[in-house]
């Protein structure tokens, strides 16, 4: 699964109601624009960490704003 698809799957796993909004998402879309609260967002991160068997550092996470940022992070962790 490519990184963007994995991120979308993580979002749907946490909040299925967001599925319809994901087709319009681009790398520049801010994750916050989807309208998830901070708890749901962290659940989504937990899903990604589990799938990638990794752990993102707090410092990196607070600087992520867009889907592109998160995609880069996922790519990096896939490449070890």
């Amino acid at each position: 699964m490519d990184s963007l698809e994995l991120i979308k799957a993580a979002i749907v796993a946490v909040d299925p109601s967001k599925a319809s909004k994901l087709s319009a998402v681009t790398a520049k879309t801010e994750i916050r624009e989807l309208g998830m609260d901070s708890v749901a967002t962290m659940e989504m991160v937990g899903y990604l960490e589990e799938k990638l068997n990794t752990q993102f550092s707090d410092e990196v996470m607070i600087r992520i704003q867009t889907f592109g940022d998160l995609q880069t992070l996922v790519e990096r962790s896939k490449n070890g």
Partner: protein
Amino acid sequence: MSLPDVSARPATVVHALQRLSSVTGHGYTFLDNAAKPTFFSFAALNEATERRARKLMAFGLRPGDRVGMVLAQPQDFVVSFLSCLYAGLVPVPMYPPLSFGKLDAWADGALSILQNAEASLLLTDAQLQSVLWQVVPKVKSLKDLLTVEKLDSLGEADGPLPTVGPEDLCFLQYTSGSTSAPKGVMVTHGNLVANAWAISAEGMSLVPYTDTALSWLPLYHDMGLIGFVITPMIRAVQAVFVPTLLFVKRPNIWMQTMSDFGAQHSFGPNFAFALAARKAGEAELAKWDLSAVRVLGCGAEPIHVATMHAFEDVMAKAKLRPGSVMPAYGMAEATLAMTFHPPGTPLVVKSVNGDVFRADGRVVPPQDDALMLSFVSCGKPFSEHGVAAMDAEGNLLPEDQEGELVFRGPSVTRGYWRNEEATRESFRADGWLRTGDLGFIHDGNVYITGRSKDLIILNGRNHHPTAVEWAVAEVEGVRKGNVVAFSVPGEESEVLVVVAETKADPAPETVEHIIAAVSAQLSLKVSDVVLLGIGQLPKTSSGKLQRRKAREQYLSGELGKHGDRTLGSSGTKLTVARHVARSLWGRAAHTAGKLFSRTPET
């Protein structure tokens, strides 16, 4: 060697830990982000605290100086917080930046707290320091930013530690206010000892040198800090700390670690019980053993009885005893806890005639042809403390009459730091603290029925509605100054509703834009948006918006009934909310609100 006697109340928090300085077999366990535990005996904790306190004093700080603390890891937080107390400094716990959040918005919040507190020092860790440096030059009182890593690397310092007394200010707990005017609750050592003693001895019946308490709650919030850092050490009870983000990312870790450590006590806001029940799979439930659990306190946001029952039903498969979930009520201004439902007993629900109650606030038995309202009991106040309902003129009301709940006793804090106006408003001269919550007393039990102050509590955290309303006002097509935000009971927890008047013919995307604006600025999810025509929002005769009335109209389906009403993103939610509003709810403490209390704003 015999264990120190903890049957008497210590004079201060410092005294509470110092009297355990010989205890090597009991203490606190900190899990890191990989859930790896590190154990500190009370002896080791006392030693680490003393060492750090002396190093802090070497920076030329004077007793009473404020120290801002932005620390995400429980171990760093606990040792740093306690070392400030040993050094006579006043810690100011602050929430760390959120993932995916707007760093600038967070920095603004941090700045206003540091400025209000006139902090002399900012304590953080190596990971977070880079985002904090931008704030430092803007706070005139700040002498330095220090990381815990730097403190650890410094050589040992010596010198005497000051004597701390019960009347001394212990820490400042910042609560929801509008961002421009943060309010720091002044909590003394005497307040903390009184409240923590009541919680441990009366509320939860903690057994010294035997019990274990476990928490994933944020420590910058009163429920986590007072409930699980201060209270256990006052009774020589062990505590286990799980990083907050670890719980949110992997909710099963809560009950997993309760089972692993055979813990008896924990606490969480309503939403956490919903999350934990939803995530627990059959495989986990079969593995866990929760038979040791005695009290799972629920506070800090309105309690949904259905959520509590669903949680107990699911966890029964892991041997959780029925009646383990305990509603609690509290707030930061009351130090932390005000009332606890008796642990181990079923929830007590009071059903009333809704028509009479809504008309004049009287509690009378329900009738067949009338609307029925049900409320959950949050229990009785602790000894030496009192809770009553008060009318708008300041008269105490008899039982079974709704009014603003007021609280008194040794847990009532000193007021707000350098904010006399706000202090006068809430801390009455006769000793009663105004809670801003509406409720009634029945058979001595406290029932919460709503709020007189317009505070929104979501996921255990308090938010001032103006912050949401300002974000919405920026959206194209919305009539500025004609927006209200409030929360209503949702399926599991409270949900956020926005009602906005729009200019004629709003664009179809307006609802989406409102949801995105609130999410982007505040990291909050809007569950329903109602767009109204001009002049449809309820206002006072002087033109002031009436949030409470708008909320009532929303719940009863009356909102904008006579205007061009457009249902928002989720029309079905409205029906759900209306339905749930008639079912049971109670509200517990805050501290990020309420069991506790009012928490800092996100």
